[in-house]
């Protein structure tokens, strides 16, 4: 009782529970463009493998500032309208944009803790603690915590441990927010287990040279690329 009163007075000290997340975007998540993106993505993924019941998508951009994490968040939310179990994973250990946007403080448990587990059994147990649900939607999120230095090893561990494969047994759609492909090679590493990658592009911001470089340097990234989400500025 005293504790809850304390947290009411000082909400900043309140520990984020599993069901008290709220989507912190200033605009509506119900977006026609994102719904269109969802249906286009769905068409393309199902075209590639019609028998597939669950699929893993990646959202990335050439550099920061092109709206990749918002697209990932809104796309994942959009998938909740047609699929029951949707998971959004923050795989950007360099900036942890999703986690910073969704959580007001450092999450109690995160993907970093999951990867620190010694074996697969422990890993799956930790995952259940690290997955958070949103209040009004069926969307769930697996946050990451920003790591200093070069976190490529962590990302590699995600794919070496076949974590995404195991999660896809339960979730219908998994949307991964990836680090910018134009700056880091992490997105290329992630293509192994991902069925399709969506690139976000911002008009008058994204450089042509960067796009060119991304697809020239990583052939596998281009093979997995489904297309672009194009943000034109008003």
């Amino acid at each position, binding site marked *: 009782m005293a504790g809850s009163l304390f947290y009411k007075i000082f909400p900043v000290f309140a520990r984020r529970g599993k069901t008290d997340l709220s989507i912190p975007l200033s605009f509506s998540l119900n977006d026609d463009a994102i719904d269109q993106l969802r249906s286009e993505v769905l068409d393309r993924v199902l075209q590639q493998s019609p028998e597939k019941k669950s699929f893993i998508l990646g959202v990335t951009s050439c550099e920061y500032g092109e709206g990749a994490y918002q697209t990932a968040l809104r796309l994942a939310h959009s998938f909740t309208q047609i699929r029951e179990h949707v998971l959004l994973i923050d795989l950007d250990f360099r900036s942890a944009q999703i986690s910073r946007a969704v959580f007001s403080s450092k999450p109690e448990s995160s993907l970093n803790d999951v990867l620190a587990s010694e074996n697969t059994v422990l890993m799956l147990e930790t995952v259940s603690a690290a997955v958070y649900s949103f209040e009004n939607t069926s969307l769930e999120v697996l946050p990451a915590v920003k790591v200093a230095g070069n976190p490529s090893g962590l990302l590699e561990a995600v794919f070496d441990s076949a974590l995404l494969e195991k999660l896809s047994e339960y979730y219908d759609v998994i949307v991964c927010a990836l680090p910018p492909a134009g700056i880091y090679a992490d997105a290329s590493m992630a293509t192994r287990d991902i069925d399709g990658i969506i690139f976000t592009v911002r008009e008058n911001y994204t450089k042509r040279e960067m*796009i060119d470089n991304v697809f020239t340097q990583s052939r596998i990234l281009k093979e997995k690329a489904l297309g672009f989400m194009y943000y034109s500025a008003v």
Partner: protein
Amino acid sequence: MIQKHSVSYINMHAILKSCKRNIAFILLAIILCTVAIYAYYSVTHVLKHEYVVEFNYTVLPVNGSTQSGRLSNMDVTASQTLGMLYQNLYSDSVYTDRILERIGINVANNPNNVSIYSYETGSPNVFKMHVSSNSGNLTKMILEAVVDDMQTSPGLPPGSMVVFCEDVHEIDMMETGMGSLKKYVAVGILLGVFLSCVLLALKVVTRCAITEPAVLTALSNLPVLAQKRVPLQRIER
């Protein structure tokens, strides 16, 4: 299928669009540039160094006789006072060239806008010489040369009093704080505007950002799945 190579990196459409987006910046740069150029020339004008020398030639004959060698070539009429004669003589460009030669400056190009002229005053026996240039040191050197020339000149008999008045008008803005400030502000604005223009040009020409979905498709052979128009500030990281 559109080939990747068909999209040029120098896209006039992109450049024009970028210029249109930065029209306020370009206009501001033009206005600042105009102001800076105006300020620069204003300051240059202010930076002129002027000195006035007074010569008292009361001991000289006032009837226009051609006693001195230097005056021998002049056509002195009866109606012409000696003051007027001196005024004509020392306002001549030939005289300026002679003074410049005397201090070792090439007269072919007059880089510092050296100007020497004389004029009469209210007193019938006094005329003044005005020396100005863009350089303070040069003006002093010219002034000394003029005084030396006048004193050693056979046209000025011994006993003529030379009154040397320096900075009578206090126009030597170079040595005052205000003059330096104006100069540095003007030069700073000029440099700033120039650099801004260069940066803008580099940004417009070299950035070559994506300006339309068709360019994107042509570059990558990938479709634009969806398009959304959003205010710039809402596209965050």
